[in-house]
Every structure is written in C-alpha cells, then in structure tokens.
C-alpha cells in the first residue's frame, strides 16, 4: 500500500516539474573551420576505390602465345592512395585484385583425341598485388578535385589462383568439360609498368608485363604483354 502511494506521489511530482531539456533545432560548431583539412581529392592525402576493364593488345612471343583477343580481358578493382607533393606532382600506391582471362588460340590440349572438337578454352589467373605510381596534374588552377592527370608507375602481382578450363565434344557427341587448377607451369609472380591518363573519374590505362606467365620448362610462348582499357575512379566528380 505504501509503495502504491509513493508511486502516485512520484508521478504527481513529475507532472508539476517543468521539463528541463532543450530541443536543439540547429547547431553549428565553427571552431573547426580554420583548420585546413589534410584529406581530400586535391589535399595532402586521398584514397579511393576504382574498378577497371582492359583487353590485351600486341603480338605473342610465339605460335602457342596467340590468343583470341575478343575473348580475353582483365577485370580489376582496388584502392588507390594518393599523396600530394606539389600542385602538379603527386604519387602513391595502390592495391588491386585482378582476374585475367585468356582464350588461347594456339594451345594443343594434351590427350584430346584427334577427332574431338574443342568447343571452348580459357586460362584464368586470379591475382592480387601492389602498384606504385607518380602523377602529374597539368591543370594550373584546380580546386579540390582529381582533375586531369598522367600516371606512370610499376606494379607487381601475386597469383592467388590459376585455372585452365576447356570443353570439347567427343566423336560420340558427348560433351566434356575439364577444369585444371593450381597450374604448375604458371609462375607465381607478375611485374611490369603502367601508364594512365585520367579526366576526373574516367581513366584510360595501359600496362606492359615484363615478367613471363609461364615457366621455361612448359615450352609455352608468352601471351601478349600489353593491355589497354578503362578505369572508373570511384570518387566525387
């Protein structure tokens, strides 16, 4: 009974005490305004994701290095860090994840019976790696945005996975699909040089691979070493 009285008294007390909270509708703290930020598209530090697509160009090192260029490509995405040195010069590093897909045009499939018809063939490499680049922005007057630029740099990639997939139709009409993973004739590392020309978010890019994909003992000629493609920088316009 006593407890009930206290509860009633408590709520009566609440009803007569005015609320003391404020409903803040607008608030601005200006004390940070004088601090020039370090981070931004044309500030000291900036990083952004990107996504790209490229195709292979140029000749192969030998007959077994020929590819069907219309069915061979590189898809990649990653994160790029940019460090501004001067208004015109910056540099940085990038991490990327790449999937290379080749359609060999000159490979002989071991064990494939002479009458069997090869219907499709792909060599796929999954890589991750790092790149280092130097950037030149040539716009004299540029605010806090990426702008127009030329990059030159180097890259190195590690093969996370390799797979050779092909399918063929046997003389009996039966279709067979074969997947070979962890290919021992594929070298574990790639390296090369890169160049890009960018207009804000849109980048035209090219790479040249110095390293070989295939071990000497495989006897395979190298695929084309040039790539040319597009990249989309994922940052504000």
């Amino acid at each position, binding site marked *: 009974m006593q407890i009930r009285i206290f509860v009633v008294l408590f709520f009566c007390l609440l009803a007569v005490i005015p609320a003391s909270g404020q409903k803040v*509708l607008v608030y*601005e703290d200006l004390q940070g305004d004088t601090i020039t930020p370090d981070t931004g598209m044309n500030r000291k530090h900036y990083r952004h994701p990107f996504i790209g697509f490229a*195709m292979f160009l140029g000749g192969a090192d030998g007959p077994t290095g020929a590819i069907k260029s219309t*069915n061979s490509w590189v898809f990649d995405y990653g994160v790029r860090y940019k460090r501004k040195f001067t208004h015109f010069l910056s540099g940085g590093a990038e991490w990327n994840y790449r999937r290379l897909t080749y359609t060999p045009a000159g490979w002989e499939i071991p064990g494939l019976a002479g009458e069997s018809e090869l219907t499709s063939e792909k060599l796929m490499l999954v890589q991750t790696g790092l790149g280092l680049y130097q950037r030149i922005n040539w716009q004299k007057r*540029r605010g806090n945005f990426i702008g127009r630029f030329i990059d030159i740099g180097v890259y190195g990639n590690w093969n996370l996975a390799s797979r050779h997939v092909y399918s063929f139709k046997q003389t009996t009409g039966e279709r067979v699909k074969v997947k070979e993973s962890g290919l021992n004739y594929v070298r574990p590392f790639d390296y090369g040089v890169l160049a890009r020309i960018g207009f804000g978010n849109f980048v035209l890019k090219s790479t040249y691979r110095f390293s070989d994909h295939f071990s000497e003992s495989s006897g395979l000629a190298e695929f084309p070493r040039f790539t040319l493609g597009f990249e989309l920088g994922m940052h504000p316009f």
Partner: protein
Amino acid sequence: MCFFFTVLIFSFLSSGPLQAQSSGFLQTTEATENVWVFLTDKDGVAFDPYSFFHPKAIERRLRHGQDIYDPIDFPLREDYLAQIGVLVDSLDGISRWFNAVSVFAKPAQLALVEALPFVDHIESMTLNMIPASNARGESQVAELSSKQLELVLAHTAHLKGRWFHENGYDGRGVRIAIFDAGFPGVDMHPVFRNILSENRIVATRDFVRNRQNVFHKNSHGTSVLSVIGGMIDSIPMGLATGAEFLLARTETWTEFFSEEKNWLEAMEWADRHGADIINASLGYTHHRYFPEDMDGKSSLVARAAAIAFRKGILIVNSAGNEKTTDSWKIIGTPADAPEVLSVGALEFPSMLRAAYSSRGPTADGRLKPNVTALGTVYAAARTGFAQTEGTSFSGPLVAGFAACLWQMFPEWTNQQVFDAMQQSATLFPYFDYSHGYGIPQADFFFRDPLKNLQPTFEFESTKDTLRVISRLKTLDDISQDLQNRYVYYQVRDAEDKVLEYFVVLLEQTEVLSFSLSDYKPGQKIMVHLAGYTSSWEF
C-alpha cells in the same frame, strides 16, 4: 566485344579535352585549352556610351555617381585581337571589364601569345559551375492542389509581401536579369501571361549557343522566373510581378557544366541593357577552388560582381547547396563577394535553414549568407508545375523583394537597398552563418515593427549560473508565428568571433542555462527571441 571496346576508346578520345581544334597556326597534337588572355591597355579606342548603353544603364550610372565614360566599358583593341587570333585556334569571347579575350589554344600557341608585348597574363578557365537546386523529380501537374497552393502563398507571405502589393509595389520599372540554364515554356506558360502581355521580357541572349532564343533546354530558369514574377491567375508566385526581365542562358548543361566566360559576358550584357538587379542561381566550388579561397577576391566572377556592384547593380546570388558536401559545406563564389547579396534557403514549413543550404562565414570571416528565404517552392516547369527546392529559389524570391523595394525608393543606391534588406530581416541585428540576418520583411518599410518592441527575455545570473528567462508569459503570447518560438543564440570569443551557434525551441520560461565555469572571461552569449536581441559578457 572488341568492336564495342574500340568504339568506346575512340568515343572517349574524341570527346575528351585532347581533341585537336580544326584550325590554327600551329598544328600539334597537344591538348587544347580554353583560357582568358588579359591585355595591358585599351589605348586609342573609341567609345560612345550613348549608342552602346541602354538609357536605363546610363541613368543607373548617373544615379550611382559613376562616370559614363569609364574605360572599363571601352571595347578591346581590334589590332590586339587580330594578332592573337592569328596565333590561336579560335577566339571565343571577350570581356570589356577585364580587358580580356577568351581563346582556344594549345600550350605552344599560348607561349607565343604570352610573349606578345600587350599581353598582361593568362588564366585558365573554369568549366564547372553548379546550379543551386535539388530538383525533387516530382511529376509535373497541370494545376495546383490546395496544399500546393498553400506553399505558393508562402512564397510571398513569409516575406510579408502583401505590404508591397497592397501599397502598389510590384517591381514595376525595375529591370531584373536572370542568368540560368534555359527558359523553355516561358513564351507559352500561363503563369507568364502577365509578363508577356506587357512585353516585359525586354531582351534575351543564349550565351552558350550565341543566339537570341533562350526558350529551350533546361527548365531551371523557367522555375526561377516564375518565383520572381509569375502569377497563377491573380495569385503572385513572387513579388516582382510588374518587373521587366532580361533572360540570359549561361549554363551549358543541366546541373553540371557551365562556363565562366558565359557568366562574365552575360554580366556585361545585363549591365549594357540596363539591369538593376542580377539574379544568379549558380556558383563555383571545388572544381576550381578550395573553401579557403572563398574570400570574395580570389575568383574572377567575384571580382566581376564587384565591378557590377560599383556600376549600381544589385547582385542576388544563391548561397549554394553544398552544406551536406563534406569537402565543402560553405558558400561558393560569387556568393562569397562582399558586394553580392547571398541568400540561403529555408525549409517549409519549419522556416529553419534547409539541410543542404551552404553556410558561412567566408574564408576571411565575413557574414554569409546575408539573408534567407524559402528554398522549397512550387514553381512553373516546362509545362505545368513542379515542387522543387534549393537556394536557387530562395535567391529569386529575395530578388523580387529587392525589386519592390527599389520601386518604392527609386533614389536609393544598390548599397542602400542591400543594407535596408538586411536591416528589415527577422533576426537583425542578430545573425548566424546559416540564416544570415533572417528573412527580409516588407512591413519594415511601412511601419516600424521595432517601435514598441519590449524585451522578450532577460539574463539572470547567480554565483555559478547564467539563465535566460523568457518574459513571454505563455506560448499564446508568442502569436502563431513559428519564428517567434525559436531561440537563436551564439557563443562568441573575446575577439567577437562566433564559436558556435544554436537554434532551440522555446518550450519553457527558463529558455537557456549556462554554467559560468564553462566559459572564459570575455566570451559572450548573444540571444535573439521574437525580434529582440541582447548579449551577455562573461
């Protein structure tokens, strides 16, 4: 696949800035730039202001004590232009005010131009101007519902516009130039019947295509014009329903691209055609500048605005919609110029700053925006109407206000109109960097609303606490005006610099409470409630 890729590469290359221009003295594969070439002098050129200027432009100059033979208005030297024309790909436009010519040229060509003895310097041109609107994308409707009509009525009601209209002021005789992205439908839409029937669109110019017709492309300008001078039957959508208009298309594409060149040329064109007011709902931000450049002096358009102001033109510019942009937040340029009346946007119906509305101060600490007005409007679209929002529309509402005020006091200079509009605003002399001095109020010019104003609050201090106590006994005393339920306050340091500011809702007698130990000696609290402003120094 390969074909698609090849097409993409070539379309990319052909659309990019690397595209070579078709003619020129030096044929190289270098990138072509669009730049301003500033010249050293105008020696020996002939100029007749009476044939060059509209009589209203001359009258305005005289009213503002300006020389009508100002060398800044003289044409550029033809021999200089001819020599530059030989060296570059093409001449693109001129600015008399800056004695500059816009050219397309490659770096090698520019090196030759820069070496000419009459070339002062070269500046690259800004390409990205951002219109200050956030189109809601609502479907257009042919007629307004009662709710939409309520919003239309608020366009003028929150400025107490009936005081102008009931006393016969509708901007008649005042000439307003509007710079925008296009004006499709203006020549057909019924809300402009009042303007068209009296031939009050006195000149038009498309600076993008270099022709007269502006009734095409983006309808942003159509919406802007409607909230300055449009009428739905007998209901005004803006205050200047009797003004004359100069319509200039200066933007090249919806919401993204425009050119500084168009803006400068349009400004000189508006001056020549006798504009009293220029309304621009555009601004430059991060594409060329950093927030720390927003000092009213760094940008070419801010300097152009200063020249126009000197010639007696009142420039009303939207503050911008960058508040929610992390890398920017503050006003763009030319809204940063001290000579420009910068207008922030308010939400409807709260009448507090809109979340997107760019705030001040400028990089050198000046107050911006100067005033605020509704940013959410129901405006004319290409056909019918559409709800839209942005500082793009608060600016035109204020431009209409300025036109009525100038009609009422035709002898005033632009500086007097500028100052009076600030003084008439709801918060004056209080200000903050979101609302400026508040909403300009037409009744200020017909009665003195401050005449019988009693203090609405008082400060009470104890040993360790400062309290702000409302003198308004009940909320019923406060009237129905929502503005009178907002308590605006700010904390200033000993140098009078604003450190932070607030708006809180008045809900109780003890409005605010401050612990004295939280503040340093010399710091101040400034409070505004229901028209009354007072401050306390710790």
